[in-house]
């Protein structure tokens, strides 16, 4: 069995909703704005997400004039094909800065996450371990 040591453990968040208990793998990521100032954003960790996807109305953080001013792309969602726009930004996690692509897309509003944390570039910088039943994420800075 492969063995790896993880320095960080991220617990899932349990939220009581009108429809019952929901367990969410949430992670706080620091976004470095073009001005150099930093803001922390809560994202949902999604192993199926190839690119980190942020809510469309976060475009001011990327220093762009509107959410749809980037490279136009299309995404497949449960509700059908949805437009999204690609940008490049810098995200920091556990003190490591990663230059990576992000997509802006119209996502449902949720107070505990403003986007989905994706794999592109970021999985090269970190090692992630996840066992669904453990309800924890394991992160190493030395993958």
């Amino acid at each position: 069995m492969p063995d790896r040591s993880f320095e960080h453990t991220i617990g899932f968040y349990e939220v009581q909703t009108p429809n019952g208990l929901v367990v969410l793998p949430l992670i706080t990521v620091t976004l470095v704005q073009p001005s150099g100032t930093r803001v922390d954003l809560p994202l949902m960790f999604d192993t199926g997400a190839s690119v980190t996807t942020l809510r469309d109305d976060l475009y001011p953080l990327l220093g762009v004039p509107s959410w749809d001013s980037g490279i136009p792309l299309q995404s497949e969602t449960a509700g059908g094909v949805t437009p999204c726009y690609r940008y490049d930004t810098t995200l920091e996690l556990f003190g490591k800065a990663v230059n990576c692509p992000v997509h802006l897309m119209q996502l449902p509003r949720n107070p505990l996450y403003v986007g989905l944390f994706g794999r592109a570039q970021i999985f090269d910088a970190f090692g992630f371990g996840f066992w669904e039943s453990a309800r924890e994420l394991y992160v190493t800075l030395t993958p």
Partner: protein
Amino acid sequence: MPQTASVGGAAKLILESVATSGLSPEEILQRLDSYGVEWYLTGQGDLLIKYWQVGAEGFVSPERVGTIRMGPVPAEGNSLEWVSRHLAELRQRHAGQWVAVVGEQVAAAAPTLPQLLERVGELGIDRPFLTEIPAGPITWITTYARPLV
């Protein structure tokens, strides 16, 4: 320098060893306390210690060691944790607003993100935690949008 010892046939790494010869009796007893070792001084001045160690290899998976050693994520300084615990209260006070949270309090709030960023700049807030508190129903499960190639 780390040493190894053979216990039960397997080599064990000794992480710390203490030479007691240079320590006063009080210092030695302090060390024993710090290691959680129970001790007793007899009326004649003899030191008795009650100590045993039972090893159970593979007691938990290596991935769980960090969690158990560190305990739960501390609430202090974790804005996401704080927001998740105070969601009902935040929905009452800031529904429909963007909020900048620092530690365990809302440092600024505004109807839009650009307005909030302006306020954050005015207040000189460093690295705020940003989120929106929706006024309407919340969607809790989001399926990932897979880019079409």
